[in-house]
């Protein structure tokens, strides 16, 4: 019964996703190392194809198709299913992979317990790998699989990139610790009772001790380790890191976690891919507008103490309709009005009734200078929203100061009366006959 439901759910979800496309393009390059057979991943690949992706397959050693040509990526997504490859063709180097990400191409990395170029690239993403040759093993829960094949519950997911109500996921591969890089976040954590050890066969606690003693790094164990991690570059390119390729395999996809309960691998893989390929959790700033209260035109500068309205439109990519749609779901958006330091920091709430619009009104500080409207929204998993608009704030013009205040009327009266008196005096003076003065003078002098 339950199994059927879950099956239905998964099918339903697949059906829903069937139209989906990515917001950055549909061409996918799958670098598949020869030891892996494409047929073993049919569920995953078919799922992608159903969504509308065009998959191109090549081996790591092939020269064509090149992942990047004349500094222009040839594909919009790359799946690097080469966990054990030591040598690649010339066009695939750690640097070129980072270049891909810088040009907004998404990459899906798969690790293994072997030391490979990819595993040496991992530290650049501040992933911290255990020493080579130490896969993740766990003896709980009781099961018939070898200890290196572990069912991992999805309920521990804190960041909602993948749905957390899936049935457990079969996992086999390495675990890794995450450095303190804000761009990196765990998607699937290792189970608490799992640890990394170099021997897959169960030799009791000694194995654990050995693992702990090895290279004096203590025990790589517990839920602080992750097995699947997401990384989002500053320019928005996304990279997903998976500790083992089998997660995507048909075997695990069809393997039951309990009697009649199919594993969550298939859907998890699809959801992971849809995040990595910027289908889901992709946001975009459509427009920015700022103007004075009861005014509509964008001004190139504002005066101190103006009341200013700042409005922005944000939309989210909808994979079903393959279109950007207005998105009002962000509740904790903030606007900063900064010059060197934020002078104003206020919430930027969604405007009820008009989807996708966020707006706030605030008073420009009493300080002239070159200010910036900064909206900086960085949440793990979501596309980072960062928009900065520069606008000078100028002091009032000479005719915008208050003039002729009531407090000053005596001065005005004084000044005016003076000049009036001056004219009166002048008139009197000129009216007064000069002769008299002369006469007087004459009288004086004699």
């Amino acid at each position, binding site marked *: 019964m339950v199994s059927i439901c879950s099956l239905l759910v998964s099918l339903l979800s697949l059906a829903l996703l069937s139209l989906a496309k990515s917001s950055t393009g549909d061409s996918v390059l799958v670098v598949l190392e020869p030891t892996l057979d494409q047929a073993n991943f049919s569920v995953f690949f078919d799922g992608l194809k159903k969504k509308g992706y065009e998959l191109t397959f090549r081996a790591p050693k092939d020269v064509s198709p090149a992942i990047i040509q004349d500094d222009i990526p040839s594909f919009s997504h790359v799946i690097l299913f080469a966990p054990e490859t030591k040598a690649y063709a010339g066009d695939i180097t*750690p*640097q070129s992979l*980072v270049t891909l*990400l*810088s040009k907004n191409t998404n990459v899906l990395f798969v690790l293994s317990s072997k030391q490979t170029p990819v595993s*040496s690239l991992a*530290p*650049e*993403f*501040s992933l*911290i*790998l255990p020493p080579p040759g130490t896969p993740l093993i766990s003896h709980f829960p009781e099961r018939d699989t070898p200890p290196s094949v572990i069912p991992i519950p999805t309920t521990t997911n804190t960041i909602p990139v993948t749905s957390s109500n899936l049935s457990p996921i079969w996992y086999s591969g390495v675990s890794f*610790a995450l*450095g*303190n*890089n*804000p*761009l990196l976040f765990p998607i699937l954590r290792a189970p608490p009772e799992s640890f990394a050890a170099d021997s897959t066969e169960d030799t009791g*606690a*000694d194995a*654990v*001790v050995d*693992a*702990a*003693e090895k290279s004096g*790094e*203590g*025990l*790589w*164990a*517990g839920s*602080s380790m992750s097995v699947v991690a997401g*990384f989002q*570059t*500053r*320019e928005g*390119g996304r990279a997903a890191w998976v500790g083992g390729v089998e997660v995507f395999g048909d075997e695990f996809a069809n393997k039951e976690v309990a009697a009649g309960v199919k594993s969550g691998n298939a859907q998890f893989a699809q959801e992971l891919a849809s995040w990595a390929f910027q289908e889901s959790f992709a946001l975009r700033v459509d427009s920015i507008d700022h103007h004075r209260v009861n005014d509509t035109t964008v001004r190139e*500068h504002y005066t101190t103490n103006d009341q200013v309205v700042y409005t922005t439109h944000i939309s989210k990519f909808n994979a079903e309709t393959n279109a950007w749609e207005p998105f009002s779901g962000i509740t904790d958006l903030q606007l900063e009005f900064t*010059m*060197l330091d934020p002078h104003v920091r206020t919430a930027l709430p969604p405007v009820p009734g008009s989807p996708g619009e966020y707006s706030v009104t605030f008073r420009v500080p009493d300080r*002239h*200078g*070159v*200010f910036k409207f900064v909206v900086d929204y960085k949440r793990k998993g979501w596309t980072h929203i960062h928009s900065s608009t*520069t606008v*000078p*704030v*100028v*002091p009032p*013009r*000479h005719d915008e100061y208050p003039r002729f205040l009531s407090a000053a009327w005596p001065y005005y009266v004084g000044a005016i009366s003076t000049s009036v008196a001056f004219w009166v005096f002048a008139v009197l003076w000129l009216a007064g006959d000069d002769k008299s003065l002369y006469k007087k003078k004459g009288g004086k002098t004699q």
Partner: protein
Amino acid sequence: MTAAYSLPQDISPSFITNTASLLRIVALALISAAAIASRLFAVINFESIIHEFDPWFNYRATRVLASNGFYEFWNWFDPTAWYPLGRVVGGTIYPGLMATSGIIYNALHALNLPVDIRNVCVLLAPGFSALTAFSTYLLTKEMKSPSAGLLAAAFIGIVPGYISRSVAGSYDNEAIAIFILMFTFYAWIKALKLGSGFWGAVAALFYGYMVAAWGGYAFITNMIPLHAFVLILMGRYSSRLYVAYSSWYAIGTLASMQVPFVGFQPVRTSEHMAALGIFGLLQLLSFASLIRSHVSSSHFQTILFVSVLALTAVGVGGMGVLTWKGWIAPWTGRFYSLWDTGYAKKYIPIIASVSEHQPTAWPSFFMDLHFLIFLFPAGVILLFRGTPTTTVLPSGQITTETKIRDEHVFVIVYAVMASYFAGVMVRLMLTLTPVVCVCAAVGVSELLDVYLDPSEPEVGGEGKDGEESDAASTGSGGVTATSGAPSATATATGVASPSLGKKSAKKEKAAAAAAAANSSTGIVALDSLVSTLHPPTRTKPGIWGLDTRLTILLNTTALLLFFVLHCTYVTSSAYSSPSVVLASQNPDGSQHIIDDFREAYYWLRMNTGEGDVVMSWWDYGYQIAGMADRPTLVDNNTWNNTHIATVGKAMSSPEEIAYPILRKHDVSYVLIIFGGLIGYSGDDINKFLWMVRIAQGVWPDEIQEPNYFTPQGEYKVDAGASKAMRESLMYKMSYYRFHELFGGGQVMDRVRGQQLPSVGPTLDVLGTFPSFSPPLTLLTFGCVDEAFTSENWIVRIYEVKKEDLLGRDLKSASGFAEGKKRKRSKPVSRRRAVVA
């Protein structure tokens, strides 16, 4: 009465006066022409371009005024200056200069003469120098005679001390200020002489113009009251003085307050209080004299005495109270630095760092004034003695009475004050120059008068002649005049030989300084001395024979010729280079223009974003704004010490500290000046210590000057350079890839004359510097990229990197880009294993 040589007698006096005035006009015209022409060297040698630094801002402001009109200019807020603080230009400048050239510009365009605003600005200073010559003529005419006036005009026209600030293209406030200064003084003298309110009003108007034009107006503000005060102390109070002074002060003060930048200062700051005090004093005196005219003198004495006492007490007390209450701002730092030359260096490094605020070196006196500096004291002495005012009576017979007059006192006071200030600050040489010209002209013309006068004295006049000509001709008069007379020829040679003149000049300085120190008693004493010096009974001076005359005259003429030569030479060689363009000599002797500044600025203007902020040391702020048209962090209007210190800190700290500063201020480009390649000595490494000092003033615990010296206390950039020096952003940006020019040879910094290490041991993995200095090959940048370097490497522009794509620190990011492997890092959280 015998004559040394005969003059034609049959000429009607009217004819003489007419020709004289005609000749005077012609002479003035020629002088103006010479004044203008000698200032065009800059245009001829280079081109019609704005010079130096500040003029670039004035030019830019003038363009705004000319294109947007006056009100827009008044309300101009410049967001590109002092980014991101911005600058309220309208309220923080003296608009007189821009207004002047704006008016000229519009007038010309109204006449369908579409002159380029740039040319108006470039040629403004020469044009006004002609006016200065004219106003100097007027002033000196008031002092002595038209002929002296002509001499003075000629001197001021070509004297280097004034040319240095007024060549074509040095479009600065001083360009017009000196003219206004002289004319204000002329109007003041005139007002004082005639006791006419009209001239007082004129003086006030020009004073207002001066306030609008130059910060140095404070000189007038204190000069005129001082003059009035001295006159009062000399018991020379007259209602003419009252009329002149009060009309000047009443109108002038109101006029000065119209300038937004000055605002209420005339009633608020101490610099202006002297004028106010004298004003009050005059009111009392006038009232007293009014009473005197009505009561007997006995009463009057007491009244006068008490009132003066009361006034001074009240005035000083009130000043003290107000200052203490803070209603009156105490003296500003720049003002203190006038009295204590060490003050600025201690407290205001920014002011001290300006080259033209340094004390004057003695040679520069000679360079700027040449032989005028020797005649200067002579002229002063003559003024003490007063000049004979010769009035031609209708009857044709000439009456002469020699007596010190108010205007003479004025020039004397001016001379004393100005020569002190000129000694303190180089730039104040400018205020000294005019009075030197006036005094020297008085001296020379007196000399010529005496020796050209054909009439030979009656027997018994020699002694007087000797003394007279002596006082007239040589600077040693101040000391020797009282004691008898060396013969005229001897003293003439004395003039010709600078050494004697110089010594005496020094003596005179000392005397003058003393006089300044206790001005009141000093002046009175000098006054009495003067009167003793000249017993009332005098015989007309004269010389025997032609030979002495010819000797003196030839000497004088030769001296004048030398002066002209000197002025021409100094002007063409020293004062005519627009420090924007540098000139050097090709091997074949032809002139080679080094134009790196404009190359770099134009590159910025053409190939960077409109709003990209450029960070540079403040010297180049105005030029970048004017030529590159890009926002700057700091510029030559050094009003915000902290902001400048921020730039200094960014320049003098290592990248990790500098980068956040750059990001915070949205800096996109960093521009530095580096002379090491062609030996341009005015570059940033040589200014570096000022940056450090200024930064230290604000962050004393982060930046310390000593860290930039070697342990031996030397300032080195070579292998011995200190660690702080090597790691500073400035050092790195200056020498980045510098060594590669030398292809492994000796890397030589041609300014410092030091040899830089070119190759050396490599860094170890941890990136710590070895104990001895790293070679230039190891200069790598985390936070900036070289964006542009001018042809001779004088200007180097660096672009600030964006934050790393993957949020790494920039050092490891660049390391990754270069393909370096990073060491495997360990997990943050460690758990010890529980041992079973």
